[in-house]
């Protein structure tokens, strides 16, 4: 369960911690850096949740 929590909350932590560093008016790939960062983390989330699902203890899984 702990491994599952760590995997699942990784994109959460990464997104939050990165915010102060990506806060600028620079435009990259047609996005302000803040938006780009959010999108990168949004796209990574399903992957990490999938890994978290696999790391769940057997009695909680299908």
């Amino acid at each position, binding site marked *: 369960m702990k491994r599952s*929590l760590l995997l*699942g909350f990784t994109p*959460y932590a990464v997104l939050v911690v990165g*915010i102060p560093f990506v806060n600028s008016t620079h*435009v990259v790939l*047609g996005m302000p850096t803040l*938006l780009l960062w*959010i999108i990168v983390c949004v*796209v990574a*989330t399903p992957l990490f949740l999938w890994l978290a699902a696999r790391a769940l203890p057997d009695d909680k899984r299908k």
Partner: protein
Amino acid sequence: MPISATVALVIVFLATGIGLLARGRQKMSLDQWSVAGRNLGWMLLWVLMAGEALTTATFLGAPGQAYAQGAPSLFIMCYTVLAYIVSFFLLPPLWRYAKRHGLVTQGDYFAHRFDSPRLGAFVAVVGVVFVVPYTVIQLVAMGSIATTITGGALSKSTCIVIGFVCVAGFVFVAGIRSTAWTAVLKDILIVIAVIIVGIVLPLRYFGSYANLLDAVNAAHPGHLALPGATRNMNVPWFLSTVLLASVGFYMYPHLFMAGLAARNEQSIRRNAMVLPIYLLVVALPFYAGLTALMVVPGLSGADTNTALLTLVVHSVPGWLAGVIAGAGALAAMVPASALVVGAATLLSRNIYQGLLRPDASRDTVLRVSRLLVLAVMAVALVFSLTTTALLSQILVNAYSGITQLFPGVLLSLVWRRVSKQGVTAGIVVGLVVAFALILTGHDPFLGINAGLVGLLANAVVTVAVSLRTPAVVSAARLPTSATTSPPT
């Protein structure tokens, strides 16, 4: 009446018609009405959860906020993805517990977990109180939509009342199932609308997003980074608000109940995994709002809530404006109905039946539910007719309230010693702190979202009071996840 208004009305009536027809399928019982008999397949549940999450806040509120404030409007996309992560872990144990004990609402949950109908009723009241501002957002949005597309022919108040009538109409009859089918229509239309306003229009006016953003940077330096055009919505505000809303998201009665209505735990986790992809579409209204800023500048104050539609009316033929306006109207009507159903269920089940009249018949409770739908909406209507705030600000304030239920929910799942006095004290302290700060103009407080400040106070008080009061709960009422050691 301009063609745009005609088209929009057609869409609204179509949706209402679907809502009314959906009732024909099965005899309405209380269970059916609010939780669709625990039978929702994962695809229907996906539509329901996504449809309720992508509301007026992202279609009108976000572009309006992007227009008026800039970068702060990105908080919605940010907190939503974080909320999905939270749901992956938080909802399954709640679902298991609710399934085992036959629970439907968060009032039921607290009443059963703590063996206290009164705590259930208190939680129900909190839930209902904070459904009202969220509903106000939907009704105000309806007003803005209609006012813009009729070019001011009908007053905003008249339009809000029309929206009220439509929503009350189909909710009154079929409850949550009608929401699901209308949500399908709404989701198809809103995606089309968002593609037009978020891709076609920006590219038509500027050729590329980069050009648009360069133009914004030139005309409004600093708009694209925090704090944008505001004084105090900087990085700490953003982080604290996003943290707050990510854990408060599923405390909303309609979303809590939707979670409990899942077919099984696996579908809850599957939703959490898949919904982030749908969320990407929410970036488009941001570009729409910036396009509006460059193309139809000059809106200020609460009028910025109409930024998106003003751009639309300025840029596309009347019939298409009508389609987009209709999509916006559905984006308001569908969540409003789910919100109101959730609130009415809480009131009827956890206060009327749970506390006042435990032996009321199911039909009486159903009838009371329907009356309460009207009552909750009437209260929201009154506020809608008188408010002048930015939609996004109402949203943040609503989260400052509803999130105060989170510490109680979390601790109840993981700690045996949490007591009903602890939970009650925590919620009260959290609400008092948050709203004392908000109402005296101290939000953000030291740069931090007032609701989060309240939440921290809430958590501390809940633990402290629980340590000093007995948790008089039989083992049968404890979730299997709860441990004896205090939270570390």
